[in-house]
């Protein structure tokens, strides 16, 4: 590496037209400054995160004092009139809507990525990939309005069918009962799934394409089908990157605010049915922040924000754990 660098430098010198010594002096402080700047940038990013968490924790102190941690987490009463606040319905709403989004988006993303990297003819790869990436560029408020004005009315027409057939199944039927309003947990999950699809699928596609061709070719040569190659060769090879992409999408789903606020129906009442209105932590923040008139009310909303950060951190931690365990299993298997 050093050798080639030196060679380049020698080549450059006549072009810059400067004496050897000044070129050298210019380089060293430059490198030094760049090194320092990179350290500073990394430090600033970390410090910003810490400062945010500390500031949020500090501003939620009134609520923490009043309700404690465990009581706030498990209480499902959110009543601005009596000034009693609990986060349980919103935590459940956040987790369930994101879970629905993941259940829908991950398999579709896998299909899209396999299609683009393995199946599609060259001429169609670019337009399909471009169209899916374009989904990521749409602002979330547009998704919200689309969900409310276009998707929800159509979905509302389908809901009687859903609750008639799926609602009749014992057990899971409980999830699909309720009035056909078109907005609610399931609608929010579906809109979220569309929103996170491009993130997951573009990462999957990138890593699938990067799989070394000999791996692929030798398995095809041994008579493997496209499905076998995708499922048994490509996916295990790219597993950690794929999981990273999936959790990137999950992180976005957990924090999505505007689109969810429009379609989830905003009800603080916990319900077993996915067709009923619900609320998530970000949607409550978006709804109630402007008119939070008392210090305790405001503090409880900020406390909700702190919990959202904690939920995201826990999810992130689980992701790292999962990748490690998978890595270890691979190590023992081979």
């Amino acid at each position, binding site marked *: 590496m050093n050798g080639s*660098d030196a060679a*380049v*430098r020698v080549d*450059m010198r006549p*072009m*810059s*037209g400067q004496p050897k010594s000044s*070129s050298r002096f210019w*380089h060293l402080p*430059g490198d030094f400054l760049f090194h320092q700047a990179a350290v500073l940038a990394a430090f600033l990013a970390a410090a910003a995160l810490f400062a945010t968490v500390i500031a949020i924790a500090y501003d939620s102190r009134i609520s923490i004092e009043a309700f404690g941690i465990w009581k706030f987490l498990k209480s499902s*009463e*959110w*009543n*601005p*009139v*009596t000034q009693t606040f609990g986060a349980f319905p919103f935590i459940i709403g956040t987790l369930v809507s994101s879970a629905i989004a993941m259940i829908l988006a991950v398999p579709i993303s896998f299909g899209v990525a396999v299609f683009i990297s393995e199946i599609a003819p060259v001429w169609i790869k670019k337009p399909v990939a471009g169209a899916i990436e374009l989904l990521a560029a749409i602002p979330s408020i547009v998704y919200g309005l689309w969900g*409310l*004005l276009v998707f*929800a*009315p159509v979905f*509302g027409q389908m809901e009687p069918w859903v609750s008639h057939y799926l609602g009749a199944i014992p057990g899971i039927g409980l999830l699909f009962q309720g*009035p056909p*309003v*078109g*907005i*609610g947990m399931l609608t929010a999950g579906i809109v979220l799934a569309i929103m996170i699809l491009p993130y997951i699928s573009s990462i999957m596609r990138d890593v699938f394409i990067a799989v070394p061709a000999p791996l692929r070719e030798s398995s095809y040569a041994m008579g493997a089908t496209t499905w076998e190659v995708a499922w048994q060769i490509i996916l295990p090879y790219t597993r950690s990157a794929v999981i990273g992409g999936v959790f990137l999408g999950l992180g976005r789903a957990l924090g999505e605010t505007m689109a969810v*606020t*429009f379609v989830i*129906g*905003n*009800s*603080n*009442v916990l319900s077993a049915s996915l067709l009923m*209105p619900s*609320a998530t932590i970000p*949607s409550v923040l*978006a*709804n*109630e922040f*402007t*008119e*939070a*008139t008392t210090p305790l009310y*405001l503090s409880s909303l900020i406390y909700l924000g702190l919990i959202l950060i904690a939920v995201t951190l826990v999810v992130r931690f689980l992701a790292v754990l999962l990748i490690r365990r998978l890595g270890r299993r691979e190590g023992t298997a081979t």
Partner: protein
Amino acid sequence: MRVCLWRAARSAQRNQEQGSGKTNTSYSGRLRRSVALAIALALILSAGAFASATLTGAGSTWVYPLVAKWSVAYEAQTGIEVNYQSIGSGGGIAQIKAGTVAFGASDMPLKPEDLQSAGLIQFPTAVAGEDLVYNLPGIKAEQLVLSGPLVADIYLGKIKKWSDPAIAKLNSGVKLPDTYITVVHRSDGSGTTFTFCDYLSKVSAEWKEKVGANTSVAWPTGVGGKGNEGVASYVQRIPGAIGYVEYAYILESHLADARMINADGKVVSPSLKGFQDASAHVDWTQARDFYVILTDHSGPETWPISGCTWQILRKSAPKETNLNVMKFFDWGFEHGQDMAKSISFGPLPPSTVKAIKSYWKSELGYSL
């Protein structure tokens, strides 16, 4: 390495420029830049001069159309700019307490003791109203009659179907469908919600005990829409839905609105006259700090779900600032009445304006 290459290219280019005598252009470029700088400075300075004639306010989104309308006309007449930011009542109260604005606006009056402890004063601005809207195919606007206790039971989730005998009793000539009622409420904190829930608290003991009144409450049932438009779009879309929206918004959106039975037992339609009657039946001079809520007042034509917005001032603010705010609202009370009516706000009656002026005098020690 790349930096090095780039530098070399740049210096070569510069040499070439100097060689071909392009120094003139760079000179005139510098001249142009300094002229631009001077103009920018002048602009900043003059903006600073204008800034002294700017009044800033923040708060309620409900009163925003009125303040915006008044401020345009006021600026044209006096040259004083009123910059109002509709950040919500909660934000308005916080901003005036912090002293970052000259006035705050809230849809929910502050209690006299809270005003006292924070060193604030408040006065009403204009009256407005809201009504229930519904989506019942075949039933036209103002065909349906509702009463306060009935609405409370619907919003409590006790009356579940439109064919309920309690609704049928008030609407003998109307063919009510056997569909479920979908209750729609505001999801965001709002003065509209406060006024609505305050009315229900007055007419239903159960509502008062279980839910109460605030800018946002723990709704026992229903779906929440964001803003008037959110509620309106849910009601328009869901057959069997009922929701509450501001009167101005009903006129705009052509939703089917209900008639209500008021405190005198009369069936009334929402109207500016009805809102003003509500305020006329209140003795503002008797209420401490104008802490009066206009819902459920007597009077044959009084609209039961009438509301009001309040402006909040700081006692400790500079006299000049408070006088400027007072001048603006006094101008609005006197000259802004037609403007208020054009956007469905009811102007305050002269007796109330008089009471406000004497309130200023007694609370601040100075008046206009």
